[in-house]
């Protein structure tokens, strides 16, 4: 289909989207987040589960002094010793820990041979948590979890929602009645409670969380698809596919679905944001993604105990802000997308 100016509709939508300042900023921030999540190992100074117990609960901007020791269990992730000072004597390295106690290690057990390789003074940009893990590192890895939850859960929700919505809208009759009954049953539960319920049923874990969120969030999509199909079904090109003898599935997925794509896309950006919130909420209650995999919800829960003490707010504040920013940009982007795809908004 083309617009009166001869542009394809998706091109027109893209042009409108680019003019929307909020949406563009949203896209850029989202892009940065995705790049950070993918490049996590290269931009973070530590492994997310590396603990330096001597450095537990340090404030943002803390500078440490550490010696990297070879880790026999996993050569890629060195063990870390916190030190206050060190000295090389022959084949040994003498060092004092932050409390001032002296120790000795053989140089061959350290990473590399030269102090430049095994000693460093890393910056803990956002401070550390109670196990002395770097908050910045965990925040970036938590972004991975949040974005994958959004992506995978929303894909599950889309698959179920589109399938059921299309069946209900295309066949109507008893298929519609049964599916709408299911929609109404699921709708009787607040989404987050349903996610909690499915998490209890499926158990804790990474994949269980994705599935629990996915199968709780398909109803809105199913309803939109059904509504769209109700009207699309009456259009002439659908009748034409029938006259040509196409099967129902071919008509539904090849011809009708692409014409219902606009609202589905808008709804899935909102769903993406909701999935991120749902995962964080689950981790906050202790269901969901389990330690040591870092997740924003867990980090917020960990920091919660320190809020009342009045110390180390960063442990709660930073993951909260990251989540708020993520959800905010998704919502702004979704709003822009809706305006861009809506043929009713005036062409500016």
């Amino acid at each position, binding site marked *: 289909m083309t617009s009166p100016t001869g542009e394809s509709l998706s091109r027109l939508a893209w042009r409108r989207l680019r003019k929307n300042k909020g949406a563009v900023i949203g896209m850029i921030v989202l892009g940065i987040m995705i790049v950070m999540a993918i490049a996590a190992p290269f931009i973070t100074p530590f492994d997310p589960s590396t603990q330096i117990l001597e450095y537990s609960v340090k404030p943002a901007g803390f500078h440490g002094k550490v010696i990297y020791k070879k880790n026999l269990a996993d050569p890629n992730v060195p063990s870390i010793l916190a030190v206050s000072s060190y000295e090389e004597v022959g084949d040994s390295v003498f060092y004092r820990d932050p409390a001032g106690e002296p120790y000795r290690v053989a140089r061959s057990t350290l990473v590399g041979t030269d102090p430049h390789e095994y000693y460093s003074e890393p910056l803990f940009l956002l401070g550390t948590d109670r196990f002395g893990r770097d908050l910045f590192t965990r925040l970036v890895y938590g972004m991975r979890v949040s974005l994958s939850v959004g992506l995978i859960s929303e894909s599950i929700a889309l698959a179920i929602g589109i399938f059921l919505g299309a069946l209900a809208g295309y066949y109507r009759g008893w298929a519609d009645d049964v599916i709408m009954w299911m929609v109404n*049953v699921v709708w009787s*539960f*607040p*989404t987050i*409670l349903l996610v*909690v319920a499915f998490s*209890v*049923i499926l158990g804790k874990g990474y994949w269980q969380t994705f599935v629990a969120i996915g199968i709780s969030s398909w109803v809105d999509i199913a309803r939109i698809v059904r509504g769209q199909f109700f009207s699309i079904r009456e259009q002439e090109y659908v009748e034409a596919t029938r006259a040509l003898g196409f099967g129902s599935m071919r008509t539904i997925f090849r011809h009708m679905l692409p014409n219902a794509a606009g609202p589905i896309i808008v709804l899935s950006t909102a769903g993406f944001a909701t999935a991120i919130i749902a995962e964080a909420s689950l981790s906050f209650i202790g269901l969901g993604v389990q330690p040591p995999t870092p997740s924003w919800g867990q980090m917020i829960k960990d920091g919660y105990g320190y809020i009342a003490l009045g110390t180390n707010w960063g442990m709660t504040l930073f993951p909260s802000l990251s989540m*708020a920013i993520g959800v905010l940009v998704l919502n702004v982007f979704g709003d822009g997308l809706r305006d861009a795809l809506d043929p009713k908004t005036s062409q500016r």
Partner: protein
Amino acid sequence: MINYLLRKILYTILVLIGVVVVTFFIRPPGDPARVLLGQRADSASVEAMREQLGLDKPLPVQIGKYIINLVQGDLGRSIATNRSVTETILERVPATALLALTSIFIATVLGVLLGVTAAWKPNTWVDTLTLSTSLLGISLPAFVVGLLFVLFFGVVLEWFPNSGYIDRGIEYLVLPMVTLAIRPLAIIARITRASMLDVLGQDYVRTARAKGLSSRKVFLKHALRNALNPVVTTVSAWFAGLLAGTYFIEFIFNWPGIGLAAFNAIEKLDYPMIQGTVLFTAVVFVAVNTVADLVYGFIDPKVRLS
């Protein structure tokens, strides 16, 4: 009208049956008896536990029994405390109701006020401020807002106590109530604004203006009344989201309602208690929505016929 009423009620019962069946299946994976007793329990005591929980019967029998008990108001016994789940929930209803009702009240009043103000002068700074604040409200999950409030108003500024129940003073209500109200407030403000702008563009509003009524009168008497319909739907729909929000808010503020009980039950996998609280929330939600639907049916004949 009677026909409409009967149809509506019958359908609600049908939906509730589905809700009960879903709730029945909320239990930890594997053998719940084994989960509860731990890995080291001998098979005889696991068997006894299975019998006690009724897990030795076939599934349809279990579901049937669950429904029969439910009709008698029996939600089973909590595994953690061995108290009746129904009793525990009932004694916690007032705390949650107080929190939820005051929050939705505040959210509705302020939300409508904000939305109307924004629609009064669209695309000005008032409007932009309302829209962006409400976007922020929508983007922050309730528990994060709660924690940030505890941090700023409880710890830094020390304006309000950051945890405890209202029996210690009215100031204990403030933070949990405001926290819970933020999201519905944001959404109600947006819906009111959109609906108001929509109504203001219609012919009868133009007619009212054309016949010389002051714009304030047109705005408040003619437009607002019709603009509020979608707002009422939003309020009733958001009531459920608010009830779910109490699970987190009550935990953060140590507010002894149903949500706190549910939160503790989830940590212990006390599944009869989880089932009870989830079911309770869902039933309240269905009831609120059905009543809202029926009220529309009375007010607006168009709803009855569709």
